[in-house]
């Protein structure tokens, strides 16, 4: 009983102290927003995971969108997030390596950033170096190859722009701009980047038909003896078209980039990289973590006859001893046709995703 009285007393204290905050935050009333969940996702997937301390609001998303296209995040005001994650390129970059503000190229291909709200394992980047989206968006700003800025400088720059002072106040109830709030706003916007209007989505909804070649390609994709793509890249039941996990898919005998192993230090994870979504392959070339393959044909050739052994190769690369699954030219053509049905032409021109600045 004493515990209950103490508990009620604590509630009283909280209620009284909250009363003062209410007065201070008068006018702070962002509008809650739910992600518009596509029909195929609501049928097949759990609800997106939104952090309790960064729920989506209309004001937060609008601010995040402005920041996503804001070149002031970079040290010389020339590069925004959208510079390497372009809506018309599947929110990726068709250059093998994106170029930072000093003209220096990176060493990995830009990852597509759609349907991130369903990344339930909370590992971000090719190498899993970030444990949340809010953490992920911080790094490119200070990366010496990318935006080469400092967070104090970003905060100061944005603080001098009255538009942002107002926008932060509307979104978060404070006019003091911090890197944490910039990250929260960017994360809110990125979580709204949803891609689920591909031909195959419409096929699953009974609103489109596949050609015979595309159907043959789907069969190759789902055949353990041929493509065996489904273990890592989803299926009609997992329309994310990724397992959001890390694998060594037989690219190299020796690693120049350790991937996940570089972050964990675990030799058993050397050369493991995150499976990217297969959505929007029509717009996201080149492929693989290092953009080594310019075409989808080269990707399919790799899995068909280009696999090489290394100590950490994934056991799902079952046919590595034969160099791959040995697809026929017909099977390759069919698989390519199917993969292209996962591209969503509406993404590039979605008005909610364009530059508002």
């Amino acid at each position, binding site marked *: 009983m004493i515990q209950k009285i103490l508990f*009620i007393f604590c509630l009283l204290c909280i209620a009284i102290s909250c*009363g003062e905050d209410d007065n201070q935050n008068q006018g702070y009333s962002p509008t809650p927003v739910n992600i518009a969940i596509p029909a195929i996702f609501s049928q097949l997937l759990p609800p997106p995971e939104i952090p309790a301390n960064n729920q989506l609001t209309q004001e937060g998303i609008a601010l995040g969108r402005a920041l996503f296209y804001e070149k002031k995040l970079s040290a010389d005001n020339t590069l925004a997030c959208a510079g390497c994650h372009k809506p018309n390129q599947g929110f990726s970059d068709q250059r093998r390596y994106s170029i930072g503000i000093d003209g220096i190229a990176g060493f990995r291909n830009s990852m597509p950033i759609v349907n991130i709200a369903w990344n339930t394992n909370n590992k971000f980047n090719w190498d899993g170096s970030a444990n949340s989206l809010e953490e992920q968006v911080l790094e490119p700003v200070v990366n010496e190859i990318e935006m080469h800025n400092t967070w104090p400088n970003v905060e100061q720059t944005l603080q001098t722009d009255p538009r942002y002072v107002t926008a932060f106040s509307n979104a978060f109830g404070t006019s003091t701009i911090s890197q944490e709030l910039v990250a929260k706003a960017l994360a809110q916007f990125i979580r709204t980047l949803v891609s689920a209007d591909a031909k195959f989505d419409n096929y699953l909804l009974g609103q489109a038909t596949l050609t015979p070649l595309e159907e043959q390609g789907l069969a190759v994709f789902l055949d353990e*003896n041929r493509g065996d793509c489904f273990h890592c890249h989803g299926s*009609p*039941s997992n329309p994310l078209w990724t397992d959001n996990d890390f694998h060594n898919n037989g690219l190299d005998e020796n690693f120049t980039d350790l991937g996940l192993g570089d972050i964990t230090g675990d030799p058993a994870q050397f050369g493991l990289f995150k499976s990217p979504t297969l959505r929007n392959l029509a717009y996201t070339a080149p492929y693989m973590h290092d953009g080594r393959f310019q075409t989808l044909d080269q990707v399919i050739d790799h899995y068909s006859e280009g696999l090489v*052994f290394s100590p*950490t190769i994934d*056991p*799902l690369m*079952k046919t590595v001893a034969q160099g791959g699954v040995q697809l026929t030219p017909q099977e390759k053509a069919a698989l390519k046709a199917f993969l292209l049905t996962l591209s969503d032409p509406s993404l590039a021109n979605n008005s909610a995703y364009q530059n508002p600045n």
Partner: protein
Amino acid sequence: MFKKSVFLVLLVLPFVACDKNDDDQAQQNTPVSVGFLHSFYENTVVSSNFNTIQYTNGFGTSLSITRLRYLISQVSFTNQDGIKTLVKDYHLVDLSQDNSLTINDVLLPPGAYNLKMRFGFTEASNTSSVYPDLNAASWNVPENLGGGYHYMQLEGRWLDPGDTPDEPYLYAYHTISAVQNPGPENTREDTSIEIDLGEITVTQGATQINVNMHIDQWFENPNLWNLSELNGLLMGNYTAQKMMQENGQNVFSLASNMGD
């Protein structure tokens, strides 16, 4: 201020009103945790000792484990009056995810129970695409292989003593419903396994029950498993799936039953 006072009175009332019920409930139900442990003969298996070739199976093949995920369903406690309480419809155990190694949200009155669960899904429950969390985990089985869901993904590497030891071979021991005629006209056969773990006692206070998977048994009893013949592409292999089902009969046992 008046509104806050009313609010606080309303807040206090339910606590007073619920006081006796809470106490009764506390006497009736006690938390029970079901943990999943794993061993290879005498060796404890956890994800931190994955990837090293350190186990030898009954056939004499040295192997490592790189991944182990499996599905448990119909976790039930039946008391001595024969009343069965289903505490979990299904649960995906993934050794790389610590939070999957325990079922925590169980409340039961103290007493003696028979604990049962099932490895995999029954035919009736193994319906394609209906479990969103399993879909997101890419746990599905394609329709040409019978559809539904995997039961287990046990993967790793193995050595052929007569071959180059630097280049181990790979295995993917995946269990699903056994399927005949893979393709559009396939027929599926339930190969899930009922696990009767026997009697356990739930005592007042927290009760921890541990279930152990003897991984070695998948390779041994009754079918001695030759990884040089059966190492991958097993999903569509009806005979291999039936052998796996046979080997799975004695894989699980109760590890301990301790009341705190």
